[in-house]
Structure formats: structure tokens, C-alpha cells
């Protein structure tokens, strides 16, 4: 009951934040030079003022900004995200079309980075001061310091062009028309490079964080208690140190799962991944206001959802929070 009301409270707040983001972005976007009519007219090479005026009228861009905002917001409140000026399709359809790809990419990157990162970090913590531990940390630092897009470029060069092991871009093999398992395998193959590229940076973060966290937990009194009980070192690491060390990582993971959506813009561009990050970039360049706002809305929604999931997981993981609720 308390749980439910808590979630209801969070939802209420989330709706407010989302609305605020929409309004903020609305004005931000309209502050940009040019508008969709001008872009489309420019593309079409049309010189006719009537043509541009016609476009503006068709898009409702001839109305005062507050009126446009009001239309937009009242639309969103009824889950109508409007029409993409450029793609001439409902924004919601466009986004829902692209969302699964982004979720797949970020989800895979997230799982890879979190699992490998925590594993590496735990190993590094247990081998702290030894060469193997330093090696892991050195690698983590290297991954952390390397620009994401650079890794992407280099890995396409290496794995797709030179070694020809993996596809260079795209979501699946075009024209192959795989079905069932073959399709899944095909997508998975395409997923490897972008997911690794996107995950590498975050993996480095988790590695560093896990190690730091474990080393600091290792200093705590209850670890000493466990040692005094005669618990085997491996069990201490796992049951006592790692478990407690994971708490701050859960928080971080929640924050970063959301940020991955933003980070995906670069990855999606280099790997031609048909996700919402690229949709955003294109919409921005084309001043496709409705679409851009829609993408912002959904990526913010993702952040909020991830945060809530994090909260729930944190509650499950930490009895103290559960108790305080």
C-alpha cells in the first residue's frame, strides 16, 4: 500500500518533470535559426514565398508560439505527439518504430558493460596491488580515456573491413530475409560491434567504481567480523564485500542507463543503427519540431523509467531502504 503510494508519488513527479522538459525543449528548439518549412523549401529548391507560407500554414507554424505550445502540450496530454513535418507520419509511429532498436542496443551495451565491468572491477579489487590487478585497471583507464567514436571507427576498420568477421553497419542483413532463429542470430551479429563500442566506456566506469567500492567496503567493520568468524576469503569477497559494494553501482547504473540513450547518437550514426538517437539528430537538423520533441520526451521517459527500476532494485537489494519506506 505504502509502496503503491510511493510509486504514485514518483509518477506524479515524473509527469511534472516530463512536462517541464517538453516546455523547455519547445522553446529551445524554436530558438534555433530556420524552421522546417525553410529546410524543406531549401531542399526542394523552391523559391516561391507562397510555397513556404503554405508549408508553414500546413504545419501550424504561422500561429503565435504560445498557441503552438498549447496545441502541442494539450496533444501530448492525450498521448497525441503530433505529426512529423518531414516524414509525414505520426511522431508516435516513427518513435515506436525506432525505439526497439535503441532499447536493444542500449540494453545489450548495458548488460555487457555492467556484467563485465563488475567482474573486472571485482577481480581488480581482489588483486589490488598485484600486476594483474593493475593491468585490469590500466585497461579500464584506457577504455575510459578513448573517445567512443574513435573506438567505433577503429573497430569497423579492424573487424569489418580487414578481418571481415562482423558486419560494418545496420540492424540486419538487408535482403537476406531471415526468419526465426536465423534472424535473431543475424541481428545479434550486427549488434556486437555497436553494443561493445557503446558498452566499453561504461564498462570502464563500472570497473573502476566496483574496485573502489569493494576496497572501501573491505575496510568496514563487518568484513572484519566475517574474518574473525573464520569465513573463507572467497566467501567474504562475494557475500560480504561485493554485495555491499554493489549498492552504489546500482545507483550509478540507473543514472547511466538513461545517459546511454544520449550516448547512442554517436554509435547509431557510425553503425547506421536505426535507433532513436539518430532519429533525434536527423530531426534536429531538419527542424522537425514535433519529432524532436517526441524523441526528447521518450528519451527522458526512458531515463525516468530506468531511475524507477533502479529504485526498485535498490530497495530489493538494501533492506534498510525497504525498511524506511
Amino acid at each position: 500500500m505504502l509502496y503503491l503510494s510511493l510509486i504514485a508519488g514518483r509518477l506524479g513527479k515524473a509527469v511534472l518533470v516530463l512536462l517541464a522538459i517538453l516546455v523547455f525543449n519547445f522553446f529551445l528548439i524554436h530558438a534555433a535559426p530556420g524552421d522546417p518549412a525553410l529546410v524543406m523549401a531549401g531542399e526542394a529548391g523552391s523559391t516561391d514565398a507562397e510555397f513556404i507560407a503554405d508549408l508553414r500554414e500546413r504545419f501550424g507554424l504561422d500561429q503565435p508560439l504560445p498557441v503552438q505550445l498549447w496545441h502541442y502540450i494539450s496533444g501530448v496530454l492525450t498521448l497525441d505527439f503530433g505529426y512529423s513535418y518531414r516524414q509525414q507520419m505520426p511522431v508516435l509511429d516513427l518513435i515506436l518504430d525506432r525505439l526497439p532498436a535503441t532499447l536493444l542496443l542500449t540494453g545489450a551495451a548495458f548488460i555487457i558493460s555492467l556484467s563485465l565491468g563488475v567482474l573486472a572491477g571485482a577481480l581488480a579489487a581482489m588483486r589490488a596491488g598485484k600486476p594483474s590487478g593493475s593491468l585490469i585497471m590500466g585497461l579500464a583507464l584506457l577504455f575510459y580515456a578513448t573517445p567512443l567514436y574513435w573506438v567505433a571507427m577503429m573497430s569497423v576498420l579492424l573487424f569489418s573491413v580487414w578481418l571481415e568477421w562482423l558486419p560494418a553497419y545496420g540492424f540486419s542483413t538487408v535482403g537476406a530475409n531471415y526468419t526465426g532463429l536465423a534472424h535473431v542470430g543475424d541481428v545479434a551479429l550486427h549488434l556486437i560491434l555497436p553494443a561493445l563500442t557503446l558498452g566499453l566506456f561504461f564498462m570502464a566506469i563500472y570497473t573502476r567504481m566496483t574496485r573502489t567500492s569493494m576496497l572501501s567496503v573491505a575496510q568496514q567493520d563487518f568484513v572484519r567480523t566475517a574474518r574473525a568468524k573464520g569465513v573463507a576469503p572467497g566467501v567474504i569477497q562475494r557475500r560480504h564485500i561485493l554485495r555491499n559494494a554493489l549498492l552504489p553501482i546500482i545507483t550509478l547504473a540507473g543514472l547511466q542507463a538513461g545517459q546511454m540513450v544520449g550516448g547512442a547518437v554517436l554509435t547509431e550514426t557510425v553503425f547506421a543503427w536505426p535507433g532513436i538517437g539518430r532519429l533525434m539528430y536527423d530531426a534536429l537538423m531538419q527542424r522537425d519540431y514535433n519529432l524532436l520533441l517526441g524523441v526528447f520526451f521518450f528519451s527522458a521517459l526512458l531515463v525516468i523509467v530506468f531511475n524507477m527500476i533502479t529504485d526498485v532494485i535498490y530497495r530489493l537489494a538494501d533492506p534498510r531502504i525497504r525498511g524506511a519506506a
Partner: protein
Amino acid sequence: MKNPIASLGLGGLLLTLLSLSPGASGSSASSDGDGAQPHSGGEVNIAIQPEPPSLMLPLVQNNPVQLIGGNIFESLLRYSTDLEPMPQLAKSWEIGDDGLTYTFHLYDNVVWHDGEPFSAEDVVFSVGFMTEVEPQARETMSHVERIETPDANTVVFHLKQPYPAFIMAFEVGSMPMVPKHIYEGTDYHNNPANAHPIGTGPFEFERWDRGSVIVLSKNEDYYQEGLPYLDTLYWHVIPDAASRAAAYENGTLDVLPAGSVENFDLERLADLPGSCITNQGSEMFNPFAMLWLNNREGPMSDVRFRKAVMYALDRQFANDVLWNGLGRIPAGPFSSKLPEHDDSIEAYPHDPEQARALLDEMGYNGEQIRLLPLPYGETWARWSEAVRQNLEDAGINVTTEATDVAGWNQAISQWDYDIAFTYLYQYSDPSIGISRTYNSDNIARGSPWNNVEGYRNERVDELFAAAAVEADPEARQQLYSEVQQILHEEVPLAWLLEMPQPVIHGCDVHNLITTGIGISDGFKNAWIESGD
């Protein structure tokens, strides 16, 4: 008077996709003539960038739409690489001796993709459709007094006065045929059929996975026996140029339309085994790169400054380094491709000393000049860096103001720039592609495609006006020569390059380019060797 094709032309600005060869022909021919026999079957993979907003060519005419839409839609005619009219939906045509009647005889076995028969009524409807939605078509068709359809397969246009360029008006991008039975009486922009366009072309729309691929499949009921050869066309959406190059390299892609890879990559990709490059297929458009110089204000209003800019530019370097030496340096405002080009005009040489001297003479006080690059990829970015360096070497202080496409459009159309990159299509006639840039009655805020530099010269206005209606070729040439001499002397803007538009494709793809608009005219005649 403007050809509707002009509307397409500047769409090329988005990312040059159309091909046109200004003189230099490709290193290897892609078309017929290598002896192999066409055969049916197979698929071709083509890069498409950016992803088109729609495939409804009659409503949206930017480059990616036309690249794909040219396969779905057709017009009455096509035009050879020598710009001669060829049959398309019209199997033959006659022009009255008075130049006032144009009679088209249509194929009688044409059906729309949905199975409905195509008839002369559709032609009349399409003309009405296009004049309603497209300003350029409006202008072209303003010469038409009335249209008659004596029978289902004949259309007759009666013009108000002679207008020789009318025969050039039936290119697929300017006058695509629209199915009357679907669009009549509907809100064209919101017709559900826009998502699944219906044409008469050799390929039908099959599938569009947004962000990934657009698939067209063979029109089995095509009215020309045996055509098309190919079964399927895959248009791959790959936003990154390097990824497109990689995809071509590993064999995923068969065709890279002009502009889909950066110029730096051209030579390498063309040199790959089994790779061919061609410069043909953009004869109809004739793209011409230049710098707008804002004649209204600051140093640019002084002709000495504008000349100094011409002297400062190292155009040879740009052509060699950025355009693989495939372009051609223009002497004046007319592309050397045009017959009206005056060969006696000499290009301004690269001479920074001369530029400096002119700047000293005019008393240029070192004021900052804003340079607006064209936001269409790396080649243009590099070019603007080179130009900035050229100008600085001549003593002009330059700051670059980068924008995205929308910002560029805004700045140009609001005249908020000092020097700006652009390129325009000159087409097949100066009255279509060139005069619009210099005519003073074409100065109007709000469009990036008119006389945005603000140049005014009554004599030039007169000459252009007279030349456009001059029937006698010699007299016409005289008028155009005078215009060229005046403009060359007054330098209203800086002429950079007659741009090459090379297409790279696997040599196993044959008959790729058969007309003056190249790939945009569709894969009707193309076939692939392996045919797998």
C-alpha cells in the same frame, strides 16, 4: 521562366546525390557497349543518404526522393546524356511548326501499380496536380493555354506563345504522372496512398524499414516487354559516409550515387578490383559551385574587394585536392558545358599579390569578414577552410560562422552573411539556371535560391531578358557574351568550380546510367552480371 527541374536542382544542396559531368567523362563507362548481353534477375544495393522523408515524388522533390522515386514514377519523356528527348510514357510526339502545339502519343498498355489503366486523363490530372503543389510547375505550365485529350492515348498541349524549352518539361522529377483515380478530390498531402506510392514505373514500392532500408521490387506488368531486368532494388540508409564506403568495399553495396562517399575516398574505391566510376548522368543539372558575396554592405560592395577575392582563391588547389581533379575551373558565370559560354573570357588567376594590391587600393581596413560554409559534409568543410586560408593569405580577416542546414538556409535567405558557399544548377539553358542569380528583379528576401547577393545592373537585366526570347542563335550568343563580359568585370559573386558528380558502382552492374539525370531516372535498363 524557369524549368521545373530547377526545383530539383537545389535539392542537391542537401547532399550532392545527382550526377552531372561537366566535360570530363568517367574513367570507365558503365553503360552499354561492353558486349555483354542483358539478362533478367538479380538485385542491386544502393546507398541512399539522407533517408528520404517520403517516396511521394510528386509532393516531395528533394534528391533522395527523386533517386528512388524515379523508379516508381514516370513522366512522358526522358532525356539522353546529350539532352535529347527520348520516349517514356509517350512513345512518340510531335511539335507543331508554329511551336504552339505539342502532341504526345502514349503507350496503350500502361497500367498503374494497382492495376488500373493509365490514360491521357491521368496526364491532364497530373499537370493540374503539379501546378497546384509545386511552384516551378506552376510557372512552366503558365505557358499552356489548354490541354486536349482527343483519345485515351493522346494528349495535346496548346501554348499561348512559342516556348522552345517546353519539350524539356517532361522529366520525371518535374512532371511525374500521378494516378487520378487515387488522388482526385482528396487532400493531396494527407492521402493515405502517400505512404505506399503508386506509379507506372519499372519498380514497385515494397517495403520501408525506417532507418534501415527501402525495398523496391520489379513491376511484372511493365509496359515495355522484358524490362526491367532486375528483381529487387535495396536502398540502404547509412548515415555515415565512412560506413557507406566500408559497405561498398565489403560488397554489401553495388552502387554509390554521387556524394554518398567523401571525395577523398573516390580514388581508392574506384581503384578496387571490379569497381567502376562514371561522371555521366548529371548533364541535365550542371552543378556550379560559387561564393555569394553580399554586394549590399561592407567591403563586398566594392568591386575591387570582390576582384581581390577572385585573385585570392586558389581554385586549382581545391579542384585537385578536394575534387580529385575531376572538376573544371570556370572563367566566368557560365559553365563551359553550355554552348552559350564565351571562350574568350579568361579566368582570374590565383594571384595573392594582385589581391593584396587591390585591397590596399580600396583601403580595406582589416574588418572581419564572415564566411558561411555549406553544411553538406567534409568536402565542403575542407573547402571553406581552404578558402578562408586563401583569403587570409591575401590579407582579408575571416571568421567562419558554421551552421547546420536550417541555419544556412536562414542566413542566406535573410541575407545575413558576408561571403557564403553555395552551388546552383545551371541546367541546359542560361535563362533557366543563370539569369535568376543576377537579375535584379529576382532580389527578394526569404529565399536562398534567388539573387541573394543583391547585384543590380540594368544592362545585365536587359541583356538576360532579350537573350531569353531571342530566336536567332547568333544574336543570342552576342547578348550572352556581353553579359558574361560585364559579370566577369564586376564579379557579383565568386565562381568556384564546375562540379563533378562521379558515381561509383560495381562493374557488374550494367546500363546503370542511360540518361541525363543518371540514377535519378531509375534502374529501368540496368542489369547485373551475376544475376544471383
